[in-house]
């Protein structure tokens, strides 16, 4: 790809980007969120058209105006959010959009056989007749990869493939990718994790703010160099002081959950969850997305009512209290889904900051709200949290993800909460914002707040947590002290639901 430019409105997503991928190499496309990685790949896959610049394949300039054409040029892409039809079978999904021999009376058995063969050849274990909605994320990713192989893709693009995987699943994926490489296929892997780049890629191209900042063999650039290239400056990482500020183990727990159960439509979402959290500690909750961590967080803050069990906060039973009451007695909630759960995008910044306290003084007397107070409060918060915004009247929709998250944190940390439930607080944020939030959480811990940190990012949990609990299928499958002896592999196995006895 040469000198590719693409802009959306006034945002320049790619400017003069060059990218060269050799046959038979694994090429990492590294950059922060919003650096333009996915846009560039969507251009290559024909979803977007470049404003200028060209795409060359085997030296021939081509114009790719749709994913269909990309597929016929043997380019395939696995999106970050899988593009599969939940109600169809694996093999139906794989052949979706292609007319097999005998169409419309496709020989399904023949197709299934071919898929099984591919699956065996590359160690991608799947059942072609399984229905998509019954499968786990890890399996879905295999389906997506087989789909590309079935389409005989020579160039595979994977967008953040490990974001949804356990460490073991990620290892398996890497093995598969290495096999594909051996076959002479090329792979582009989009990521913002430097460790991943180093373990799998042959070469790396780094993007920042839509422009290419460098391209090199992986052997020539070290970890620090890569991170500098990626964020454009040196990073001071947040470090947890090793010992808790004060030994509180003899004190009563700040939060204790007793036998929390939550029923879903067919299955139990939460099964007899029992956890204790002390003041002044960060308890990490590790797990692959969708194993009940979001629901657990919502039960603790009162958005959902559990079907059984008790929630004790400072020794008092708060199970029956609503969200508002729980927040008032010292709970804070940072939801994982900023746009749906955390913010009202079409209301302004100052209003979003007082969503919890809008009916309290000083914002309100006798139900009448004081606009001036609200605005002044917002101005203070903006400077305290270094929120980048044109003004306090700006709709939250127009802020960047990091700044939106700062709004939520500012709101929730107001009033010095004793307990903070932080669900994926740094998901989708760039490294700078992530560090800001990590430091903020650590500062809250030093202050003496108890924090339940839900995260799918093990690195983050290892860095911040005092203890790490693992959740799988609505159960706590393990609890580890985060000290020198912690076994990452063990945590990974627990995340995948492998119990000690089964090994």
């Amino acid at each position, binding site marked *: 790809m040469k000198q590719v430019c693409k802009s959306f409105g006034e945002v320049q997503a790619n400017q003069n980007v060059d990218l060269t991928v050799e046959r038979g190499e694994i090429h990492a496309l590294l950059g922060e969120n919003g650096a333009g990685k996915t846009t560039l790949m969507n251009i290559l896959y024909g979803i977007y058209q470049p404003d200028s610049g060209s795409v060359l394949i085997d030296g021939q300039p081509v114009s790719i105006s749709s994913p269909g054409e990309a597929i016929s040029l043997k380019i395939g892409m696995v999106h970050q959010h899988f593009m599969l039809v939940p109600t169809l079978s694996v093999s139906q999904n794989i052949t979706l959009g292609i007319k097999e021999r005998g169409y419309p009376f496709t020989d399904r058995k023949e197709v299934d056989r071919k898929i099984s063969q591919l699956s065996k050849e590359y160690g991608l274990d799947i059942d072609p007749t399984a229905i998509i909605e019954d499968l786990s994320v890890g399996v879905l990713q295999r389906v997506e990869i087989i789909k590309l192989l079935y389409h005989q893709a020579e160039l595979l693009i994977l967008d953040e493939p490990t974001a949804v995987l356990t460490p073991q699943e990620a290892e398996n994926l890497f093995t598969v990718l290495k096999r594909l490489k051996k076959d002479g296929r090329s792979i582009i892997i989009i990521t913002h994790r430097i460790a991943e780049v180093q373990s799998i890629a042959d070469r790396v191209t780094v993007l920042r703010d839509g422009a290419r900042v460098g391209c090199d063999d992986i052997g020539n650039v070290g970890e620090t160099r890569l991170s500098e290239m990626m964020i454009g400056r040196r990073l001071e990482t947040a470090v947890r002081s090793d010992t808790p500020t004060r030994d509180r183990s003899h004190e009563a727990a700040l939060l204790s959950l007793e036998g929390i159960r939550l029923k879903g439509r067919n299955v139990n979402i939460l099964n007899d969850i029992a956890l204790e959290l002390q003041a002044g500690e960060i308890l990490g909750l590790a797990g692959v997305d969708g194993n009940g961590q979001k629901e657990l967080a919502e039960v603790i803050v009162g958005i959902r009512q559990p079907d059984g069990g008790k929630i004790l906060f400072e020794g008092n039973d708060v199970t029956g209290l609503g969200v508002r009451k729980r927040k008032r007695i010292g709970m804070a909630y940072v939801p994982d889904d900023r746009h749906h759960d955390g913010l009202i995008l079409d209301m302004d910044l100052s209003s979003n900051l007082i969503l919890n306290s809008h009916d309290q003084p000083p914002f309100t007397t006798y139900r*009448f709200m004081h*606009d001036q107070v609200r605005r002044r409060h917002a101005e203070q918060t903006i400077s305290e949290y270094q929120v980048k915004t044109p003004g306090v009247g700006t709709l939250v929709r127009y802020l960047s993800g990091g700044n939106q998250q700062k709004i939520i944190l500012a709101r929730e940390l107001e009033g010095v909460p004793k307990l903070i439930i932080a669900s994926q607080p740094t998901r989708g944020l760039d490294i700078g914002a992530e560090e800001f939030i990590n430091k903020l959480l650590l500062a809250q811990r030093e202050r003496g707040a108890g924090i339940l940190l839900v995260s799918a990012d093990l690195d983050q949990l290892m860095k911040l947590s005092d203890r790490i609990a693992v959740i799988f299928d609505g159960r706590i499958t393990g609890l580890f002290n985060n000290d020198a002896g912690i076994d990452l592999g063990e945590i990974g196995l627990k995340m995948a639901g492998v119990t000690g006895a089964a090994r």
Partner: protein
Amino acid sequence: MKIIRELGSFILIAGITTLVGAILVLAVGADAGKAFGAFFSGILGSFYSFTEVLVRATPLILAGLGVAVAFQARFFNIGAEGQLYMGAIAATWAGLYLPSMPLYLHLGVAMMAGFLLGGIWAMIPGFLKSQYKIPEVINTIMFNYIAINIVGILVRTVMANKTSPLPMSPRLADDLHLPFLADPTRLHAGLLVALVCAVLVYLFLYKTTWGFELRAVGNNPRASSCSGISVKKTIVISSLISGGLAGLAGGSEILGVHGRLLEGISPEFGYIAIIVALLGRNHPLGVVLAGVGIAALQIGATTMQRRAGVPASISLIIMGLLVILILGRQYWVKSRST
């Protein structure tokens, strides 16, 4: 740049509607000059014609405010028509059957009765939505039919005028009438009620915690509930106020114009109110302007029919076109800005 584009789009919309209006006038074989002359003189030709516009605007503003409040809470109240009729029933009933009391008190009580019954009528679908997630669009429409037919039943039975074969209620006492504002025109104090309501709705929506919660729930119910705002309560309150305002429109029509309950007192005010709210972007000031604008369009069109023989239904076509263009414009502006 953005302002120019917005302004431009409005000029474009005005241009398109005028053009389509002209084509329609020509298509029915009328003299376009004469038709447009009649149209404008119908609106601004005399003081009387202008007051007629305001008389027409009064129920549109009241019901439009109601629809706007509901829309801000994302409660899609399509039932202003039925709520208006329920308000009319209650106001007539209070006017006819309550024991005698001082005139202004009686008027106030009758209007309040209109507000209450209209509000309760809307609160039923509101409750069904908040409690059982039953879609309010369908329920409010169905409630329109029920309300209109309740009027039909009442004026033939319990509230029938025994001295007349026509289906209507007895006439209210002659002095039980909203004060006229500019004799000898028909302009009545309902307009003042509408304007006061617009101010109150503005204060309610933008200066009180109720309004804050209502707008928050309308924008994002999920985030609102996550921060502890009761979505159910908010929807019920918004439906009550929304229906109440539409009910006031009915009361104002009874006490200010008709003086008795009869079928067809509303030439679809309740439906046109949706257009008014839409054009006014659910903002009280916008609703007032849009209410007057739509009323002018309708009054102008009737004059055009009378003087130039152009069917007044053209105004309905124009209104439909306006809605499509304005929705299209919003979509266009949005898609350009992202």
